[in-house]
C-alpha cells in the first residue's frame, strides 16, 4: 500500500546532522581555531550529567561558552525562524515569492530603528552599543506595527479580501515606511552608518541575553507553525475547497501570519535584516525533499538554522580580522547556490 507524503526519516536525520555540524563548526572556527573534537566534547559537557575531558584551557572554554556559543545559537535560532516563516508565508499566500519581509516587516523595523538612532540624539557609531535594548525593542515594535497596518489595509477590501489584497497592502505599507526611513536618513546623514550596520544584519555582538530575548518567540512560532503543516496542504487547493472540506481558511491564515510575523519580528529585532534565507531555504527543501508542508516546514527550520550559522562562519572568517555583514553573505552565497539547486532539480524532475 502506497504511503502519503510525509517527513522521511533520512531527511529529518540529515537536518539534525546539518544543525550539529553547523554548531560545532561555528564554535570551532574563528580568530582562534579550536579542534572540533574538543569543542564537541565541551558542548556535550553543557548537558546535565556529562563530564568529558575536552583538553581545552579555561580561556578556550570561556571562548566557547561565553563568546561563540551564544552567537552560533542565535544564528541557528534566527536562521530557523526566518526559513520557517518564509515557508509558512509561501503556503499561506499560495505564492512562491512570499517571504518574511513581504508584509512590511523589514520596512517597519527599518523605519523604527532609523528613528531611534537618528532622533535619539545618538547619531554616531556609539548608537548601537549605547542603546542595547532600545534598538531591538524599536525593531520589534516597528515590524509588528507594520504588519498590523498591512492587515488593516488588507482587510479593508471587506468581503473581497484575499491573499492578493494582503500582499498589495504589504507592498503599499513597505513603500510608505521606506519612504519615511529615507527621509529621516536624508535629514540626519550622520547616522547613516550606524543605521546601515544594523540593517545589514549583525550577529557580532550577540550574547546570551539576545538568545533569551528571541527564544520565547521562536518556540511559540515554531510550535504554532509546525502544527499547521497539514492545514497548509489543504489550503494549497484554494480557500473554497478548504472550507468545503471543513476548515476555516481565513482564520488559519490570520493565525499563521500572526505567528510567522511574531517570529520574524523577534529575529529582526535581535540581528537586523537578514534577507534571502526565508526564500531560498524553503524552496531548496521543496525541490529536494517534497512539496508537502509537513516536509517543508520542519526541514526549513533545521536547514535554515544550519545555513545561517554556517554563513556566519564565512562572514567572520572570509575577510578576517574584518567581518562581512551577514546579510551580504547570505545573498552572495545563497543566490548562486539556489540557481544550482533550481537547475539540478529541474533536470531530475523532467
Amino acid at each position, binding site marked *: *500500500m*502506497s*504511503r*502519503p*507524503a510525509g517527513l522521511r526519516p533520512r531527511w529529518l536525520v540529515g537536518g539534525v546532522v546539518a544543525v550539529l555540524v553547523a554548531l560545532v563548526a561555528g564554535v570551532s572556527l574563528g580568530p582562534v581555531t579550536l579542534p572540533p573534537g574538543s569543542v564537541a566534547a565541551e558542548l556535550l559537557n553543557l548537558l546535565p550529567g556529562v563530564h568529558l575531558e575536552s583538553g581545552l584551557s579555561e580561556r578556550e572554554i570561556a571562548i566557547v561558552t561565553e563568546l561563540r556559543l551564544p552567537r552560533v545559537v542565535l544564528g541557528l535560532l534566527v536562521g530557523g525562524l526566518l526559513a520557517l516563516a518564509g515557508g509558512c508565508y509561501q503556503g499561506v499566500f499560495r505564492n512562491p515569492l512570499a517571504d518574511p519581509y513581504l508584509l512590511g516587516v523589514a520596512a517597519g523595523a527599518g523605519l523604527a530603528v532609523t528613528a531611534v538612532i537618528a532622533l535619539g540624539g545618538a547619531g554616531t557609531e556609539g548608537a548601537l552599543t549605547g542603546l542595547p535594548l532600545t534598538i531591538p525593542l524599536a525593531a520589534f515594535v516597528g515590524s509588528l506595527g507594520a504588519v498590523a497596518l498591512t492587515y488593516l489595509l488588507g482587510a479593508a477590501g471587506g468581503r*473581497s479580501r484575499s491573499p492578493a489584497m494582503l500582499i498589495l497592502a504589504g507592498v503599499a505599507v513597505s513603500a510608505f515606511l521606506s519612504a519615511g526611513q529615507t527621509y529621516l536618513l536624508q535629514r540626519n546623514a550622520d547616522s547613516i552608518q550606524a543605521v546601515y550596520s544594523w540593517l545589514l544584519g549583525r550577529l557580532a555582538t550577540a550574547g546570551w541575553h539576545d538568545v533569551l530575548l528571541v527564544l520565547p518567540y521562536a518556540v511559540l512560532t515554531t510550535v504554532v507553525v509546525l*502544527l*499547521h503543516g*497539514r*492545514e497548509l*496542504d*489543504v489550503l*494549497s*487547493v*484554494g480557500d*473554497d*475547497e478548504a*472550507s*468545503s*472540506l*471543513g*476548515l*476555516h481558511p481565513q482564520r488559519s491564515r490570520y493565525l499563521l501570519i500572526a505567528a510567522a510575523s511574531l517570529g520574524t519580528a523577534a529575529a529582526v529585532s535581535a540581528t537586523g535584516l537578514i534577507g534571502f534565507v526565508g526564500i531560498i531555504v524553503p524552496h531548496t527543501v*521543496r525541490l529536494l525533499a*517534497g*512539496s*508537502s508542508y509537513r516536509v517543508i516546514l520542519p526541514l526549513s527550520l533545521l536547514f535554515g538554522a544550519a545555513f545561517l550559522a554556517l554563513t556566519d562562519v564565512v562572514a567572520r572568517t572570509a575577510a578576517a580580522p574584518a567581518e562581512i555583514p551577514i546579510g551580504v553573505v547570505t545573498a552572495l552565497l545563497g543566490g548562486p547556490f539556489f540557481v544550482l539547486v533550481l537547475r539540478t532539480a529541474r533536470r531530475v524532475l523532467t
Partner: protein
Amino acid sequence: MSAAAGRPGDTPAVVVRDLHVSLGGTPVLAGIDLTVAAGEWVTVIGPNGAGKSTLLRVVGGLLPASGGVSLFGTPIGSLRRRDRARIVATVAQSPVVPPGMSVLDYVLLGRTPYIPPLGRESAADLAAVHEVLGRLDLGGFAQRELATLSGGERQRVFLARALAQGATLLLLDEPTSALDIGHQQEVLELVDQLRREHGLTVVATMHDLSIAGEYADRLVLLAAGRVAAAGTPREVLTERLLAEHYRATVRVVDGEHGPLVVPVRRP
C-alpha cells in the same frame, strides 16, 4: 423517475426556500425555491450569468445567503463546518492542482473532516482512500503527480476526493466542461453508477443540454437569478423555453432516453 429517488415521506436532501443572493450589490439569485429528493440527480442549466454556480456555492455552504437552505432537514447555517463537510462534497469547475502533490495525497485531503484539527490521518483514513482509489480504477495512479494526469484522469481524481469525503450529497459544477465527448460520458456514467451503488444525491450544473437531460432525473432552468422552469428533461428542454431564455435557435428531437437538443443555423 429513477428508482433511487426518495420515497414519499423521506427528508429531502436539499430544500431551498426563497433564496436571495447579492454579490457586490448586484442581485444574482432572486427568490429561488428548489427541493431535491434524496437519491435524485438534479442538473441546473441556464445561460451564462444565470446564477448556476452561485446556487451551487450556497448549497455547498460556501456563500452565506438570506433565505432558507436545509440539507437533510438541517438548516445549513446551524451546521458546523466539519459536520457540513461530511454531508456535502463539492467538485469545483476547475479545481486547483497544487504542484508536486500526488494523487494519493490529493484524495487524502477529502478525509479532512474526519481528521482532528492539527492532527494527522489515521490508518482508517488511508484505508478509506485506497478503497476509493480502487473503486475508481485509480489504484495504479496513487503515487503519480496529479499535475501530470490527463483531463479525464484528473476529473476521476477530483471525484475520488469528493467520495473520500464520505458525503451523501455531491455538488458538481460543470463536471465535464474540460473533457472530450468520450470522457464526458465516462465521467457521468461513473457518477451515475456511484449514485446508484451508494445512494448519493447529485446536484450538477451543465452547459451541454442533451447530456444534461440524458443523466438527470430533473432539470432546473435558471435565468436571471430565478427558476424559469423545472421538471423532467422532456418538460424543460423545449424549443420555446430554450429560445426564450438562451436566445438560441435549436431543434429538440426525441432520443432514446430523452430529448436531444441540436443547435441549428439561424434563418
